[in-house]
């Protein structure tokens, strides 16, 4: 399938290599902007954490950290399958590329489902300050705890939005991999989406450690 065809770059590029390099630099720059976006939220969160340590610690301990530990495992596994996918793509193993892409998508969806379960639990426990009927928090200093939960929803919500975008891109890639019309296009998109996916994983590690774990010295 398409083995003897000569791949041509877009008309404004001199070569496939130039096209691939441009895409790669582009995606790294994009991740730099994403870093500043999340960085600004983490900075703001850090400021309030320092201002209201007691309220924030107590609120943090009421999060479903065990559930999200499993979710972390799910997400890191998806990072692993994505890395495998990249590896197989370099070896032009179409079947394994499709398999690992499918697994990555499934794991991503699992993460979102578990996230939904967590959000539902938050609502039941009255930990959603901005929803009607969602706020009956019994911990100390509820007004500052509300600030914590707002940051919690902001960070995890923005992260989940990135997951949705990532899964959509993976799905497009999945279709392209099944068609396998241009191995060059599949591979170059895979590099971009793979880096984006890895970035989402890393952001989650920061979210998990700074929202869920930071206030749990010496275990649960």
């Amino acid at each position, binding site marked *: 399938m398409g083995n003897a065809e000569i791949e041509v770059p877009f*008309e*404004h590029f001199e070569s496939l290599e*130039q096209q691939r*390099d*441009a895409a790669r*630099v*582009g995606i790294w*720059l*994009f991740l*730099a*902007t*994403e870093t*500043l*976006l999340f*960085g*600004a*939220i983490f900075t*703001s969160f850090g*400021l*309030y954490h320092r*201002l*209201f340590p007691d309220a924030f610690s107590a609120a943090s301990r009421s999060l479903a950290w065990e559930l999200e530990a499993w979710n972390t495992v799910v997400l890191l596994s998806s990072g692993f399958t994505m890395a495998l996918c990249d590896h197989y793509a370099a070896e032009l193993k179409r079947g394994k590329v499709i398999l690992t892409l499918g697994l990555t998508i499934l794991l991503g969806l699992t993460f979102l489902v578990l996230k939904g379960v967590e959000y539902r639990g938050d609502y039941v426990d009255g930990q959603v*300050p*901005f929803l009607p009927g969602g706020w009956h928090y019994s911990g100390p200093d509820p*007004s*500052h705890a*509300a*600030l914590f939960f*707002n*940051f919690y929803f*902001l960070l995890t919500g923005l992260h989940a939005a990135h997951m949705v975008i990532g899964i959509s891109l993976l799905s497009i890639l999945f279709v392209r991999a099944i068609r396998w019309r241009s191995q060059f296009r599949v591979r170059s998109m895979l590099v971009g989406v793979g880096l984006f996916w890895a970035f989402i994983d890393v952001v989650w590690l920061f979210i998990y450690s700074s929202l869920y774990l930071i206030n749990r010295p010496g275990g649960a």
Partner: protein
Amino acid sequence: MTNATATDLGRTDRVYSEDNYLHAGYGLRSWLLTRDHKRVAWLYLVSLTVLFVVGSISAALIRFDLLSPDGLIDASVYNRAFTVHGIVMVFFFLVPSIPTTFGNFLLPLMIGARDVAFPRINLFSWYLYTAGGIFVVITLLAGGVDTGWTFYTPYSTVYSNSAVAFAVLAVFTVGFSSILTGLNFMVTVHKMRAPGLTWFRLPLFVWSIYGTSFVQVLATPVLGLAMLLVFLDRFLGLAVFNPDLGGDPVLFQHLFWFYSHPAVYIMILPSMGVMSMVIPAYAHNRIFGYKFIAMSTLAISFIGFLVWGHHLFVTSQSVYAGITFSLLSFLVSVPSAVKVFNWTATLYKGQVTYEAPLLYAFAFIGLFLIGGLTGLFLATLSTDIQLHATYFVIAHFHYIMVGGAISGFLAAAHFWWPKMTGRMYPEIWARFAAILLFVGFNITFFPQFLLGLEGMPRRYATYPAEFQPLNVLSSAGAVVLGIGYLLPLGYLLWSLRYGQKAPDNPWDAKGFEWQTTSPPPLHNFHRKPELEGEHG
């Protein structure tokens, strides 16, 4: 007369190439779905002009109101006028102005490429820009917004009853347009240069666009977040900036100025790049200190990220932070001064011809110098406490952002007009307009320095009677300045049809863009451009 200079010197034999990008398609579709960077530049030029008119009308309202100490329009209308003026002029005109138009048109030409790295993203960013512009119009239809362009909290999040949400959405959207443009240009400079065109052979305009893009890519996301938080705060009561619920309003100022001070360098760096092209062309001299200018561009981009706290000298920011930001703000003036000295040295012993773009360049140097030096007063902690939020600040940043950035924009428009359109602009009118702009600008804004020194605060619809003479003078100057803007709009449009046909290189300037035809063909070059001299 221009025709005479061009042909007498026998600079080129080709005049107005019929095989050009403007003839590559004629319908509306050929423009709205184009991927040609040269056409995208025109799309931007048209949208920018529309929004510039919106911003100018609101400026006219401000100056009209201030003719009388009691104010001639309703105070709440006045608040909306200065807010829309600020939002439109900063986010929709000055920030995108030179990069999206001349940057788009020239960057691939200058580096010998066929297009930017991502042509579809380039077009998409214009659509984002336009969507943002539509949100501005919706804001106006919904009754306008009265927070000031800075959206300071908690007024914007809790108390204002105006259309803050739409305005914030507009800024958020146009921010993404800016990020994508910057990203596209950075990749283009890194990966699309013609073989042999090494970094230190790049035209200085390319350096300035690169430095600008760096700031756009890294600073704008933080503004986007600040806008998102204001939006969510209004609808969900997120309270992040609401002191009643433990939020910190000064945090918003930090996030806002982390973008909005570097944004000043987004506005001025491209103009500096234009200066570095225009001045050597009319001085008929090579640029003095090429590497210093290139490196000072990067220095401004970098140090520009570390000075935002000088907007917060009178907040709860600690005095040690204040001292640090003050020092860093002084530091950023050094690379700016390096550039000014280099341009002056380029003129020295040159064969200077005083065509309109050079007159605009002189206007730039004069206005930028005044704006830059008065900036030092504001970077000084003690004087800033007196001058903060007075008309001194208004005058200072208009000298930089309007005097500097718009002089640079108009210099570029005239300098590259023959290349973009294949037509010459009328030289006499252009010189007249350049002089009018300089005179009108100074009459408008110099009195505001004096008003600020005497303590007239910004953002008030009324003022004590003793300030009236200077305010009337300022408003009169605004009329002259307005004519200075309208003239180029008129004669440049006129020249599209009636202007003399332009040769490939009417100014005998160096650079790849002057080696191709005027206007360039669809793929920019009929034959590969050749490196000439030390830098391209």
